[in-house]
């Protein structure tokens, strides 16, 4: 009996406005018994269609029933100066909501007009000076994963070697990484660690690498997702390379 477009209603107020419009009712003088009935039937319909009825719809249902009961009961305060209409608050709410529905409609029109007009697009982000495709930024997790692979390959070999002289410092390894990069300009993550045989060395070198990334002295990129990680030298003024 209802031809209801499902999912059209934004909420109970929207549904009420729809019912008011549909039955050509005066918003200032809503026949509360009728509208409550219509509203409940709609909820029933939603139920039979197995739609989730949002809690707000039920709250409104109880509000309607409350208003209905108040209008039906002989009011005690009838004699006092024109007892307030129990519908008053609901009417105010409906009017307010309707006003903003209009405003929303207006915004939609602006949106459609704006869609017709184009502007320059933001250029694709390019924060690397090389011409070739720099690939993806590498997340810390990805870096750690690759480091884990390096450690796994080398780790156990010198497990027992405890050298008192293994005083590898982050500064020292920073120099080492920068030197390597000044020769190659670009190398793979694995290559960076290839000549290092102790876990300590690996870890310190990795720390140096992170430190250098943080100071943007080099860039790490991954041309394909989960692929090889490449390390690039960054030409900065305080990074005097062999050129």
């Amino acid at each position, binding site marked *: 009996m209802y031809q209801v477009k499902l999912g059209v209603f934004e909420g109970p107020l929207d549904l009420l406005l729809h019912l008011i419009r549909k039955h050509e009712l005066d918003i200032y003088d809503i026949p509360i018994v009728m509208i409550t009935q219509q509203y409940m039937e709609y909820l029933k319909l939603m139920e039979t269609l197995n739609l989730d009825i949002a809690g707000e719809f039920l709250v409104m249902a109880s509000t309607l029933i409350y208003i209905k009961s108040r209008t039906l009961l002989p009011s005690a305060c009838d004699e006092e100066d024109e007892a307030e209409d129990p519908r008053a608050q609901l009417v105010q709410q409906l009017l307010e909501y309707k006003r903003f529905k*209009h405003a929303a409609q*207006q*915004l939609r029109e602006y949106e459609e007009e704006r869609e017709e007009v184009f502007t320059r*697009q933001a250029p694709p982000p390019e924060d690397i000076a090389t011409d070739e495709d720099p690939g993806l930024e590498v997340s810390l997790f990805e870096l750690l994963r690759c480091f884990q692979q390096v450690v796994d390959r080398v780790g156990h070999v010198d497990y027992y070697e405890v050298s008192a002289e293994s005083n590898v410092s982050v500064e020292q390894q920073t120099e080492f990484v920068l030197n390597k990069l000044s020769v190659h300009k670009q190398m793979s993550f694995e290559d960076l660690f290839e000549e290092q045989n102790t876990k300590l060395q690996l870890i310190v070198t990795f720390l140096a690498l992170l430190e250098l990334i943080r100071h943007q002295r080099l860039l790490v990129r991954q041309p394909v997702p989960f692929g090889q990680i490449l390390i690039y030298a960054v030409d900065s003024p305080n990074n005097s390379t062999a050129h």
Partner: protein
Amino acid sequence: MEIQLKNIIEALLFVSDKPLSINQLKQITDNEKKELTSCLNELIADYESRNSGLQLLNIAGGYQLCTRPGLAPWINRLYTSRQLRRLSPAALETLAIIAYRQPIIRAEIEVVRGVDVSGILRTLIEKSLIRIMGRKKVPGRPIMYGTTQEFLLHFGLEDLACLPKMEELKELLPADEPEGEVREGG
């Protein structure tokens, strides 16, 4: 070619992907606002008079070079994968309430709409259409929301004052009140 201020401004507008404000132009060109404004107005008129495919718009507190409306069909052929960024009715309603009532807290929006809006607020923040403006000094210190520059850009507005006045919207009301009551009464 003798370089005029107008040329410089036009070049800057051409290159920029965002509206440029008078203040930005002032900083870059080291010229007075008055001169800049008159150049901008001249440029607007230039584009108008030579029936250009471009127009210079005053939008979101700045100036931006845009294409003319009728050209969209061809541009859409160039950018076939372009997604429309239209907002849902629920998002529009929520935005409208925020735009007119800002700064506003969630509970106040929900009173007007009669439904929960927390999900929509999250989406709108993600899209940078609204922002958190602070906390209201009431118990619970709820967050207050307001619209952003991106909001103005999305709807092509110069500033918030360009929105129709709330009173104007009120006046609209009786006219499209239950159609029958008013119009078919006679």
